[in-house]
Each structure stands twice: as C-alpha cells, then as structure tokens.
C-alpha cells in the first residue's frame, strides 16, 4: 500500500474575494463538515485506490451520512431537502478529494434519484429513493451508447410492449457505477421511437454490467457497460412522467450544475498544493514562488478560481429560484472544468518532477479532469450550446 501521503492532507481553503460571505451559516457548516470528512476518510486512501484502479466501496456509508446522496431530494424520500448551493458545496468538497468520488455522488443524486423523483410515480419514489439516499442501493445512469455519445437522440437501445412486461434490448457504454449498481436508470426508445426511462434492477435475467478496464482517468470510480439481452422489465418500472430526450437532459442539467462546483474543488486542491510547494521548494537560493514566472501561474490560478466561484454561486442562486437555464449551466460547467484542468496542468509544472508522483494529488486530479471535461457534454458540445443560445442557430448538425 502507498502510505506516504497518509494523513498528510494539508489542504487550506483560499477565498480571495470572501465569497464565503455570500453563503449562509448552514452552507458553511455543511462545507466544513464534508471537508473534514474528506480529510479523514478520502485523502488518506484515495491515492492507493486510484493507483490500483479500485473503487473505495467502504466510503459509501459515509458519503450517505454527509448528505452526498440526494441532497436536494425532499426528506420524506430519503434525501436531505437542501438547496442547490448546498448541493454544489458538497460536490466541491468531494471533488477536492477526488473527481471519482464526486462522480459516484453526482450519479446517485442527479442521475438516479433526480429522475426517479422527477419522472417517477409515488410507488417508484417510495420503493427506490430511501434506499438510494442511505446508500443501501447504488444506482447508475445509462444514456451513452457505443455509437451514440454526444448525439444520444440516435440511441438504439429499445423496448417492446409484451403485454404484461417490456422486453429491453441494447447496450450502454461508459456508465459510472455500472459494475456495482443495484439499479440502473436506463434511457431507451419505445416502439414509437420515443425516449423513455426504465428502472432496471440487478438480477433481472439478461442484464449484465461488464467493467471497463484500463482507464487512465477516474481510476477510483468504477465504469462499465450495461448490456440488455432480452431483459423482461416489469411495467411498473417505466418512469411515467418523462418522455423524449428532454427527460435525460433534465438530469444532466442537475449533474452539470454539480460539476461546475465540483471542478472548483479539484482546482483549489491543485492551487493549494502548488502554492505551498512554491514557497517550500528552493532553487537558485530562493523559493520558486519568488520567481515571476511562478507567480504568474499562481496569480492566474487564484484569479480563475475566484471567477469560477462567482459563476458557480450565481448559477446556484438562479437554480434555487428555479430560473437557471440549461445554457447558463452549460457555460458554468464548461468554464469551470476547463479552468480546473488548466490549473492542474500548471500546478503540475510548479511541482516539477514531484508533480508526476502520487505524493501530490496533482496528476490524479489532472487525469480525472480529462473525463470530467468529456462526460456530461464535452467541452465543445457546451460551446455549441452557448453558441446556439447567443445566435439562435443550431451548429450541431
């Protein structure tokens, strides 16, 4: 086991614009709590799990306890009934630890609990949400297919009405949490070609979840396929209230919002480590933080983090007021993930050779962010969303 970094999470928050003052007392308490949990539970083990490409399953219970599963879902359904800024803060703190851990929480909250809550009926809500909120059941979200990534509307996974059940066929790829999920929210076309959501449960005959190996990114998160070979899905597992592509896109809006916050966490961790290293590392008889080129990197990092914080906060306020548009969320996701990836790369340079090792979190964040900038809409797709929003012209096709 890799032990060098154990207990060495020296992270300190940097809040250049006193953005904290925009938060409520409870927001700050939530942030402090999740941060303390990440320092105690995630930081000491995450490097080892990432190096071994294993998911730290033992963290699920703790994730549920700190409110990472369904923070915005009402309490009577096993959520926490919190606002969207609280959700964002939880994601930020989890991703400060590792994007993979944040991904697990994002999927469970925004891509599994959210659609069951939003598009499900009362019986479905009561059956699934409390168990998902407590982490007793873990969920996955199947939208992407081998031949349909950025263009999910072309999906070929489909189901037929067989009278007393639906027969589901097809496959999904790149699915976070797939290898160990108990339930999967699967998007598939009905006989009329309309996209619908189905809850598929582990154990249903013909349903398998092979793991995707050899990832250089999100190594501490399990990714896999969802394969449906004549799976008989009970009729009561169809989500009645979401039809068409806008149903899964609604989930993605919620998850992207969380990612816009999460990326700030990864960026803060890289910046904090780089700042400390630059003051400790002596070359040419002075700390490398004393050289203008290093200062340029650090100054630009904190500037970009500050801008990202304000973007995330504002979109959080809009989301709380139920006014945030998908295009606004796209902009925040795109900007903040790109910002974090940039900072990870610059921070890696500041750490010199040390930056490529697991002694520091930088390379892990950097590699993780390569997934984050791709999933939930690629960097370019979000640009096209903004482009369409400002010109009114669709440049996707």
């Amino acid at each position: 086991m890799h032990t060098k970094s154990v207990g060495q999470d020296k992270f300190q928050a940097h809040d250049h614009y006193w953005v904290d003052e925009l938060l409520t007392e409870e927001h700050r308490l939530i942030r402090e709590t999740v941060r303390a949990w990440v320092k105690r539970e995630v930081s000491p083990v995450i490097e080892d799990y990432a190096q071994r490409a294993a998911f730290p399953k033992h963290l699920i219970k703790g994730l549920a306890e700190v409110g990472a599963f369904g923070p915005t879902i009402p309490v009577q359904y096993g959520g926490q009934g919190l606002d969207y800024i609280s959700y964002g803060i939880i994601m930020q703190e989890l991703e400060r630890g590792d994007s993979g851990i944040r991904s697990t929480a994002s999927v469970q909250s925004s891509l599994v609990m959210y659609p069951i809550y939003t598009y499900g009926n009362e019986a479905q809500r009561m059956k699934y949400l409390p168990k998902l909120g407590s982490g007793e059941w873990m969920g996955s979200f199947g939208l992407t297919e081998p031949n349909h990534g950025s263009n999910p509307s072309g999906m070929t996974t489909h189901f037929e009405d067989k009278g007393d059940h639906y027969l589901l066929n097809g496959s999904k790829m790149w699915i976070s949490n797939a290898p160990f999920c108990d339930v999967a929210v699967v998007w598939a076309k009905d006989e009329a070609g309309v996209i619908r959501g189905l809850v598929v449960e582990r154990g249903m005959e013909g349903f398998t979840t092979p793991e995707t190996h050899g990832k250089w990114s999100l190594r501490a998160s399990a990714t896999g396929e969802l394969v449906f070979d004549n799976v008989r899905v009970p009729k009561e597992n169809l989500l009645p209230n979401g039809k068409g592509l806008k149903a899964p896109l609604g989930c993605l809006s919620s998850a992207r919002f969380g990612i816009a916050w999460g990326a700030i966490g990864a960026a803060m961790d890289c910046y904090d480590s780089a700042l400390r290293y630059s003051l400790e590392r002596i070359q040419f008889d002075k700390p490398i933080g004393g050289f203008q080129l290093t200062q340029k990197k650090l100054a630009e990092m904190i500037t970009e983090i500050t801008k990202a914080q304000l973007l995330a906060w504002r979109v959080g306020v809009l989301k709380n007021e139920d006014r945030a548009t998908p295009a606004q969320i796209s902009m925040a996701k795109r900007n903040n993930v790109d910002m974090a990836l940039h900072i990870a790369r610059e921070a890696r340079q500041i750490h010199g050779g040390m930056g490529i090792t697991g002694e520091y979190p930088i390379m892990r964040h950097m590699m993780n962010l390569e997934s984050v900038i791709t999933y939930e809409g690629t960097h370019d797709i979000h640009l096209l969303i903004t482009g369409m929003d400002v010109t009114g012209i669709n440049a996707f096709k």
Partner: protein
Amino acid sequence: MKILVCICQTPDTTAKIEFTNANTQFNTSGVQYILNPTDEWYALVRALELKEQNGGSVTVVTVGKADTEQNIRKALAIGADDAVRIDANPDDAYVVGTHIADYAAGKGYDIIFTGKETIDYNGFSVPGVVAELLDLPQVSLAAHLTMDGNTATIDREIEGGIERVQVSTPFLVSAQKGMAEQRIASMKGIMSARTKPLQVVAPKDVKPLATVAYYELPAKRQTVKLIAPEHAADLVRLLHEEAKVI
C-alpha cells in the same frame, strides 16, 4: 447527568493575523472562525459520550455576539441538545468566566466541561474563573475521564507522566488531547441543529479586569545561513557577533 460544555470560536489557523487601531485590536476582516478545537474534539465529544452512556443532557454555552452562532450550530449538529449564547463581547477571561458562572449558578449541572485553552489567546484562565465563582472543584488538563456513579476518575497529563485524581460531582474539568476523538457531524445532525433551541441571554454588566495595551507580531524568521564544516571559526564569530548568543 446534566452537563454544560463551554465553547468558543477562534480564528481559523489559516487566518492572516493583523492588528488595527494602533495595534490594540485584532483585524477580523475576512477572518474565518472555527470552533475551538479542544472544546469541540475533547470537551464536547466526551460530554456527548457520557450522555450516551448515562442519559441526561448536554448544553453548550458561549459568550459572544451573533457572529458566533455558526459555530454554536456546529456544536448542536455534532450532538449537543441545546445552546445558550450570552450576548456579550468576550473581553477577557474574567468577563467570560463571570458570565458563564452567572448563567450556570443554581442550574444543577453535574459536570462543566471546558477545553484546556483556546488556540487564539491561549489564556487557560476561563475554567479557573468559572470554577472559583461557582465554588466547584476544578481538574485541569484532563486527558482521560471515567465516571462511576457520582465519582469521576480523571487522568491529568503532567510533566513526564500522569496524575490520577478522583472527584465527585459537581465539578469542572478542562479537557485536552486524549479525552475523546473528533466527531464529524452527519447531515442528519446538521438538519436537526436547525430546530434545536438556542437561547440568547442578555448579559449582566461586567467590566474586564485587564485591557490590552497593544499586540505585537513575532519577529520574522531569519533565513538560514549554512556554514561549511571547514569554516567553523566563522560559525563561532557569527554566533558571537550576529546572533549574540555566545
């Protein structure tokens, strides 16, 4: 078992320390506050453990203005049943101790817990003031505490060893490392803290016994001078002429 835990907030260890008003006041601008670690990790958690074993209640009390409520909520989120804020500035240990003693007098607390010190001004004095004003036995720097009926057995850390003392309720104990392990609030705890009672008490008129003349920051650390082994004479000269230690 009725327990009172004295808590306070302190600047986060990462806070920039600056002074204003001719160096007589701490500049609080942009400073984030945390719950004083010895209060939170040791005093409060041990109090909660005793309550869990023996039943009873845990009340937290602080002397401070409304800006302390975030940290009071944190104590409630970790598990305290209710909170009291005495609405006064914590000017000095005498003021704080007098307010707390005033509040606690006659309320029948079996144990009053404090942390051994606050990590900002490091006064160590509040526990003594409270105990004295309430005429209670005080055990300071307690690293371990077990209860048997009304009798507590407490280990105090002393230079090079421990001192084991016994004391019966009511008593005051100031807690330090070893007493308990830090607890992280759960989201359930945070949510239940929203509705737990937080009583704000108007302060009596108490004047501080001490005033601050001024604050001063420690001198900046000098850079290290390395002297090659073959130049030992230089080292001796520098220690004599520059460092003036020999």
